[in-house]
Each structure stands twice: as structure tokens, then as C-alpha cells.
């Protein structure tokens, strides 16, 4: 041959490893940190958790003078401190769905499953990575929101509550735990539905559509059923007062964790059985 034929040679790989769970965990961490949606969702979740209590605290101090005694009695410092949790859960849930659904929409799941053909370690890795990331993010967020809102309210000497008061620390940290579990639940939903829009819709249906629908039911039915919904059970983790027709924080938290476990179980079975 007259033409110069460049020889392409693949360099040998000296180290040979194997698939282990720590390896998969690290791989999933690389994936988690290397897409924009992670930074956006986590950033928004963190900021909203703090921003809402701060804004509500300022609004409350500004209007305190003109509030009726009845109104004032209705305000509770923990409601203000944890107002952001209700909003942050949406950001964390969306990211939870995306972490797996985007693998299906982009096709990267095929690369993932050729590297880890046993598949389940991928699900465990995603869940564990995301649980750790969201709890590490949310614990400081709820602590900041608690102490910041208290500091703002303290300037007018209103609605003060001590972190060491019974149930307060549990409620504040319970807010972080709740958001983490929401992320886990959403990730499992994403793995079941395998579609971003569908996953987010399913999550919204369970958390935001189902609870108000219960009010259409006769009062006694609503009272009997609502407390067992995932969102209602879960939110007892950060409720200070035990209202009638609600579960205790421990029972609610356990039930919500049970829902998460059930969703994960379904996701795991489908993950192994379905074609990609």
C-alpha cells in the first residue's frame, strides 16, 4: 500500500478492577454532581428553605401591631421556621425523579447497565448518594431557617421558642428528614415511571392533589383516611403539636418510611425485570 496507514493501537490497561458497591456509589456520585439540574435543584431547595421563614418572620413582625389577639394566637414560631420545607420538597422531589428518569430519556441508562449489568447496585447507589446529599444539605438549611426566623422575631420579642424545648429539635430536624424521604420517594417513583414528566406528575398527584381531594369525602371518612396518606403521615415528622386525626411523629415518620420502602421495592423488582 502506498498510502500511509496510521496504526491505531489501544493502550493496555494495567489495573483491572471489578464492580463493587463502593465503586458504583462513587460512580453515581460523579453522575449526581456533573449535571446542572443537581446544582439548580439543590440550590433552590436550600435557598427556599431559608428564604420563606425569613420573609414570613419579617412579615409577621411588620403586621404584629395590627393583628387581633385571635390572629396572634394562631401564629406559631415553628410554622414560620419550617414554612420553607413545604416548598423545598418540590425542588428535591423533582431532582429525585430526574436522577433516574433523565437516564432513560437520554439513553445513558444503557451505558449505566452495561457497566453494572446486575442493575440493583445502581438503584441502591443513587438512593444512598441522594439521601446523604439531601440530608447534609437540609439539616443546615432548617437550622439556619429556625435560628434566623427566631432572631428576626426576637427583635420584636414575639413568638420566641427555645430549641431545647420538648419536641422543637425533633420538629426542626424532622423537617430535614422529611425532605430527604421525599427525595427518596420521588427517586423510586422516577425509577418506576421512567419518564420525567410522568414521574413529576405522579409525585404531584400523590403529594399535592390527593390530600385536598380528601375534603370532598364525608368528614368522618376524611378524618379516617387522610392521616394515612404519605404526605400527611410524613409531615408529622415536623409538626410540633399533635392535632386530632393525625399520627404521632414517630408513627407518621415510620409510615412514610414504609411508603418509601414499598416504592423502592416496586422500583427494584421492575428494574431487574424490564428491558431497557
Amino acid at each position, binding site marked *: 500500500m502506498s498510502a500511509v496507514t496510521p496504526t491505531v493501537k489501544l493502550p493496555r490497561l494495567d489495573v483491572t478492577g471489578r464492580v463493587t458497591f463502593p465503586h458504583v456509589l462513587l460512580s453515581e456520585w460523579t453522575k449526581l454532581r456533573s449535571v446542572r439540574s443537581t446544582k439548580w435543584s439543590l440550590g433552590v431547595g436550600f435557598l427556599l428553605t431559608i428564604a420563606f421563614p425569613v420573609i414570613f418572620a419579617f412579615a409577621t413582625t411588620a403586621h404584629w401591631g395590627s393583628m387581633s389577639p385571635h390572629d396572634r394566637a394562631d401564629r406559631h414560631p415553628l410554622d414560620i421556621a419550617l414554612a420553607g420545607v413545604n416548598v423545598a420538597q418540590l425542588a428535591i422531589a423533582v431532582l429525585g425523579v430526574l436522577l433516574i428518569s433523565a437516564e432513560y430519556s437520554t439513553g445513558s441508562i444503557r451505558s449505566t447497565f452495561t457497566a453494572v449489568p446486575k442493575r440493583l447496585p445502581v438503584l441502591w447507589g443513587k438512593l444512598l448518594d441522594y439521601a446523604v446529599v439531601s440530608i447534609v444539605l437540609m439539616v443546615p438549611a432548617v437550622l439556619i431557617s429556625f435560628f434566623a426566623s427566631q432572631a428576626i422575631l426576637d427583635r420584636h420579642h414575639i413568638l420566641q421558642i427555645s430549641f431545647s424545648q420538648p419536641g422543637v429539635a425533633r420538629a426542626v430536624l424532622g423537617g430535614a428528614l422529611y425532605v430527604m424521604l421525599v427525595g427518596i420517594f420521588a427517586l423510586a417513583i422516577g425509577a418506576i415511571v421512567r419518564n420525567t414528566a410522568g414521574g413529576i406528575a405522579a409525585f404531584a398527584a400523590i403529594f399535592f392533589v390527593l390530600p385536598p381531594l380528601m375534603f370532598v369525602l364525608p368528614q368522618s371518612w376524611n378524618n379516617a383516611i387522610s392521616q394515612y396518606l404519605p404526605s400527611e403521615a410524613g409531615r408529622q415528622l415536623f409538626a410540633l403539636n399533635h392535632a386530632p386525626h393525625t399520627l404521632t411523629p414517630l408513627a407518621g415518620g415510620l409510615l412514610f418510611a414504609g411508603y418509601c420502602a414499598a416504592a423502592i421495592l416496586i422500583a427494584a423488582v421492575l428494574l431487574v425485570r424490564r*428491558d431497557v
Partner: protein
Amino acid sequence: MIEARELTKDYGEKRAVDGLSFTVQPGIVTGFLGPNGSGKSTTMRLILGLDAPTRGDVTVNGHHYRDHAAPLHEVGALLEARSVHTGRSAYNHLLALAQTHGIPKQRVLELIDLVGLHDVARKRSGQFSLGMGQRLGIAQALLGDPKTVMLDEPVNGLDPEGIHWVRNLLKGLAAEGRTVFVSSHLMSEMALTADHLIVIGRGKLIADTSVDDFVARASQKVVLVRSPDVERLRDALAGADVTFEPAERGALEVHGLTAEQVGAAAAAAGVVLHELTPRQASLEEAFMNLTRDDVEFAAELQEAVA
């Protein structure tokens, strides 16, 4: 080595792969040829365990893909449809895959250089051209220094230089004793790259043959003859395996006889010949003949059933 036995895959009513049995040997490049939609990609997904077969079985290097402790060292695969998160950079995509096997970062950088993606490795891969996407896929396939390399339409979207590069790469990999299995819908490409061919149509095995045999079989026994007396020539040549296709006026394309046989028969019958030309059917034609027969056979079947 890849071994498929009676591999069958149904998607609902549709049978995508139908009783496919073949062996892909190490040390050579094996082309996997078939028209679009003939089941090549499905077969490759079955090999990788991404899809489960309806019936039959396939192993790579002696085990089901799923049972390998370090699959990336066994099989490196480039899948046809993009298999990369569009928001992630090429570097991070490869790094995440490498980490599943504890393969060091250095290897990722090495592969990025090898496929020529150095300048764009940190960009979001969604911005890649088709050719760049293919290069990333090839880097991914080679990441684990695999014993078996399986590439689905690797030259799609590559420029001529890139195509040349892939050809040399594949030959080099085979020369090192690896199993190389490459799909294509282009016969001409396979003729230049492959040593052995597995041809499928409608999910069924049509041919499992060396490229040399395929070429020989394809180009044999088509002869163009020109004669002032085409009618008598036709009678002289008629036989069970002989068919005619009318060429231009005064000429005839004879299938099923060699030039020597046609010449001898014409001489025996006393027919004057003006031209006697053995025709090399192009590989592309040969391939299309093979797969067209299959398609026609299927069409006839459907009519018979209806």
C-alpha cells in the same frame, strides 16, 4: 467470543429476532450485516443483557453478560442510539463508567486523547456532532481494554478520515486476538473491514460466511452475452438453474452459468456471439439480492396466510 443459540426476541406481536444461532470468533473482525430494522441492534441489546430474550440464549466469553464480575473488561460496546446524558461532559460520562470498575482517571484521559476528543471533553455532550458522539461511544467501548469489542454502526456520521481510522482500529484490535463484532447496513463498508460476515434479514440468519466466500458466491455466474440471435441462444442455454434477465437490445444477462459454459453452449449450438462478459455483481447488489429474497419470501408467506 460471542455464542448465540436460538436467540429469539418478541416485542408484543412483532418478532424482532428469530431463532438466531451464530458464533463470533476471536482474532478476526466479524461483520454483522442486515438492512435497517432487521434486528441487529436488538441482537446486540440481547448480548449485553439490556433486553431479555423471549427464547434462546447468548453468552460472551463463556458467560451470560450479567454474570461477569467486571463486564467492561469483557465486552466494550458502542450502542447505536446515543447512550450519554446530554447534560454531562464526555469526561464525566467516561469517568462515571470507569469508576464502576475502579478504572483510574488516567485511563479516561488516555481514551479521550485516543479518539481525538481532547478539546471538547469538558463540554456538555449534548452539543456534540454525530461524529463526536460516535468517537465518545468508541472511547466508552474501549475504556475497559475489553476482550470483546461490539460496535453498532460505528462509522455512522464519521468523516472519511474517521471511517479510515475506525477500520484500522478494528483490524488492530482483531490482530491482538480480541473478538470484534461490528454491525453495519453497508455491505461495501463491511467488505473493507470484516473477515467474516453474519447476515440477517427480518431477524433471521441469512448467511454466516467468510467475506471471501460471500464475494465469490455473489460475483459468480452472471454473464452478459450479446448475440444477433438472442432467441436461439436462449434455447441453447436453457436449464434448470439458469435464468435470464433482458439487458439492452441484442444482449442478455445470464444467471447461473459461467462465461466458459455460456461460450461452449453457444459454440455447440452454432450461435454467433458478439460479446461474452463475466459480470461482477457488486457486493451491495449481492447483499440486496440476499435480503430481498428474504423480504419477498416473507411477503409470499403473508399472502398465503391471508
